[in-house]
C-alpha cells in the first residue's frame, strides 16, 4: 500500500454544482464500469465506491493524494468536462471529514429535501455495486456498514425525517391521520390544476385504491385521467358521486365554490361512519368553508397545508442540528478505528522494504 493513502471523498453535489453541470457529471452504471477499468491497479486507488444520483456524483475510497487527482482527471475525461469546470464545484475531504460527509449524506442531512429517505437506498446501491465490482475492500466494508448503522440510528432517534414539508405530502399525511392507510381510499380530483395533479400523484404513489378525475371541461378530465391512469367522471355527476369517495381534492379555476356545504352534508349522511376529507387547493376556493363544520368532514385549504408544511420544516431544522451532533460524534469514533487500520497497513508496507504487500484493489 502506498504511504499516505487515506479514506477520501471527492465529488460535486447540488450544493456546489448547478443543474446544468450536474447533468454533465451524472454517471450511469455503464460509465462507472468504464471508469473502474481506467482506474486499474496501477492507478494506486485501493478501494473505490461511486455514488451517482440526480443531485450528486461522489467518489469514496482509499487512495493517496496523487491517486485522487488521477480519479478526478479520468472522471473529467470520461465525462467530457474540463477539469477547471469541475474544479469550481469540486468538493474534497479526507479522513474523519470524509466519513462525516458520507454519514450526513446517508442520513439525508445533505439532501436537497433534508430528511428524505431515498438517498439511504442509493448509498446502499453504491456500496453493493462497489462490492460486486471489486472496488470495496476492508476499509470500505467497515465504513459503509457502520455508516448504515449510524444513519439508521439518526433517523430513528431524531426527527429529521418526520413531518411532510411539501403541500402534496402534507395532504397525504393528513389523510393517513384520518384513514390509517390509503389502500382502501378512493380519491376524487376536481379540476386539472398543477398542484392538484401533484397531490393526486402523491396519493397514487402512497397506494390509494382508486383515482377519479372530474373537470368542468370533459376533454381535460379525459386527458388527465388517461395520463394518471385514473377514471373520468362527468362534471354533472360529481355532486351525487361525492359520497363514493373518501378524499376530494379541489383544484379547479372556478370563480365560486363547486362543492356546497349542502352537497357535502348529503354525502356524509350516506356514509355516516366513514369520514370525508376535502383538500381545497383552489383559489378562489372550491369547497364551501361551511362544510368544515359538518361531523366527520375534514376540510383543509392551501393556507392550512402550507402552514403545516412550514411548521414541519422549522421542526426539522431543530432536529437537523441534533442530528449533526450525532454525525460529529459517530464519525469521529469511526475515523479513529479506520485511522488505526490505515496506520497498521502503512506500517506493514514500510516493513516490507517499500514493496507493496497487497495489490491495489481498484478496478
Amino acid at each position, binding site marked *: 500500500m502506498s504511504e499516505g493513502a487515506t479514506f477520501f471523498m471527492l465529488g460535486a453535489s447540488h450544493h456546489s454544482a448547478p443543474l446544468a453541470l450536474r447533468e454533465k457529471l451524472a454517471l450511469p452504471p455503464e460509465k462507472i464500469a468504464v471508469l473502474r477499468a481506467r482506474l486499474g491497479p496501477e492507478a494506486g486507488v485501493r478501494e473505490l465506491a461511486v455514488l451517482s444520483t440526480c443531485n450528486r456524483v461522489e467518489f469514496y475510497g482509499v487512495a493517496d493524494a496523487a491517486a485522487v487527482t488521477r480519479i478526478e482527471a479520468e472522471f473529467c475525461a470520461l465525462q467530457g468536462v474540463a477539469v477547471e469546470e469541475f474544479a469550481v464545484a469540486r468538493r474534497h475531504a479526507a479522513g474523519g471529514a470524509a466519513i462525516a460527509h458520507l454519514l450526513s449524506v446517508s442520513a439525508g442531512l445533505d439532501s436537497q429535501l433534508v430528511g428524505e429517505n431515498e438517498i439511504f437506498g442509493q448509498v446502499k446501491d453504491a456500496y453493493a455495486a462497489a462490492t460486486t465490482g471489486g472496488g470495496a475492500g476492508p476499509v470500505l466494508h467497515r465504513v459503509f456498514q457502520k455508516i448504515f448503522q449510524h444513519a439508521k440510528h439518526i433517523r430513528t432517534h431524531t*426527527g429529521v425525517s*418526520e*413531518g411532510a414539508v411539501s403541500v402534496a405530502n402534507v395532504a397525504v*399525511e*393528513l389523510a*393517513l*391521520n*384520518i*384513514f*390509517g392507510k390509503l389502500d382502501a381510499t378512493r380519491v376524487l380530483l376536481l379540476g386539472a390544476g398543477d398542484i392538484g395533479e401533484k397531490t393526486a400523484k402523491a396519493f397514487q404513489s402512497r397506494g390509494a385504491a382508486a383515482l377519479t378525475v372530474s373537470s368542468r371541461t370533459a376533454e381535460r378530465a379525459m386527458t388527465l385521467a388517461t395520463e394518471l391512469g385514473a377514471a373520468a367522471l362527468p362534471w354533472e355527476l360529481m355532486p351525487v358521486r361525492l359520497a363514493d369517495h373518501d378524499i376530494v381534492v379541489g383544484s379547479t379555476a372556478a370563480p365560486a365554490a363547486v362543492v356546497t356545504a349542502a352537497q357535502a352534508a348529503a354525502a356524509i349522511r350516506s356514509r*355516516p*361512519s*366513514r*369520514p370525508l376529507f376535502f383538500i381545497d387547493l383552489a383559489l378562489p376556493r372550491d369547497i364551501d368553508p361551511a362544510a*368544515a363544520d359538518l*361531523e*366527520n368532514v*375534514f376540510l*383543509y385549504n392551501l393556507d*392550512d397545508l402550507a*402552514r*403545516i408544511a412550514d*411548521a*414541519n420544516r422549522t*421542526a426539522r431544522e431543530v432536529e437537523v442540528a441534533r442530528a449533526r451532533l450525532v454525525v460529529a460524534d459517530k464519525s469521529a469514533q469511526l475515523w479513529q478505528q479506520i485511522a488505526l487500520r490505515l496506520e497498521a497497513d502503512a506500517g506493514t508496507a514500510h516493513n516490507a522494504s517499500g514493496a507493496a504487500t497487497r495489490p491495489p484493489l481498484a478496478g
Partner: protein
Amino acid sequence: MLPNLTDRHWLWLAAACYLAGFALGTLALLRGRRHSRAAMLVALGAGFALQTIGLGLRGRAVQGCPLGNTFELFQFTAWSSASLFLVVGATFRMSLLGYFTAMLAAVLTLVSLAVRDWDAAQRMHIFGTNPWIELHAALAVFSYGVFALLALTSVMFLLRNYSLKSKRVGGWFSFLPSILDLDHIGVRLLGAGVALLTASLAMGAVYWLPHPESVNILKLLTTVAVWLAYAVALGQRLRGVLPDRRLAWACGVLFGAALLSLFAVNSSRHPPLVPAATEAHTP
C-alpha cells in the same frame, strides 16, 4: 420462590409499575418523542404480573374471586384493562394506548390502595358455593375493564378529532392513531364489552330469577342500566345513527357512570360474612 409479602404489598408494587409506565410516557411526550413501545410493554407487563400475584393471594385467602369490596373491584378493573391492553395493544399496535392504559391502571390501583376504607376490615362473601355466580361477577367486572379500555380509545378519538378539526396536527397529536383505526377498535371493544356483560347478566339471571328476594333492587337497576346504555350505544352505532364523535363521548361518560355503579353494587351487598384478607401472605 416469591418473597414473603402481603397481597397489598404486591399490589403496591404493581401500582408502581403502572405509574412508571405513565411517567415514562409523560416524559417522552414532554420531550416531543414517541415513548419506547418495548419499555411500555415491560412496565405494563410487570404491573400485570405483580397484580396477578397480589389478586391471586387475595383470592386464595378468601377462597374465591377477589371482588368483595370496592378496593377489589377497582383492582380487578385495572387488572382487566392491563390484560386486555397486552392482547389488544400487541394486535393493533396503537400508539399512545399503552400510555393511557398505564395512566388509568395507575389511577385505579393507587386510589384504591390509598383509600383504606375501601378495603374494609370485614369484606363481603358474595358467592356462596356456586361457581356460576362467581363467574357472573368476574365476567361483569372484566367487561368493565373492556369498557375502561373503550373509554381510553374514545378519549384518543376525541383528541384526534379535535386535532384534525382545529388543524393542530403537530406535537404529540402526531402520535395519535388515525380516526378510522380508533373507530374500528372502539366498535370492537364496545361489542366485546356488551357481549361479556350480557353473558354475565344472563348467568346472574339464571340463578336469581328463582330467588328474586335475594336480589337487591339498586344493584339490579344500576347494572341493567349500564348494560342497556352500552347496548343501545352499540345498536345505534351499528345502524349508523350515532356519529362517531358522539359515540366516543357516550363511551367516556358511560364508563364514568359504570365506575360509579360499582359503589351501588358494593353497597347493596349483604352484611359481611367473612373476615378481611388484607394480610394474606405469599405461601
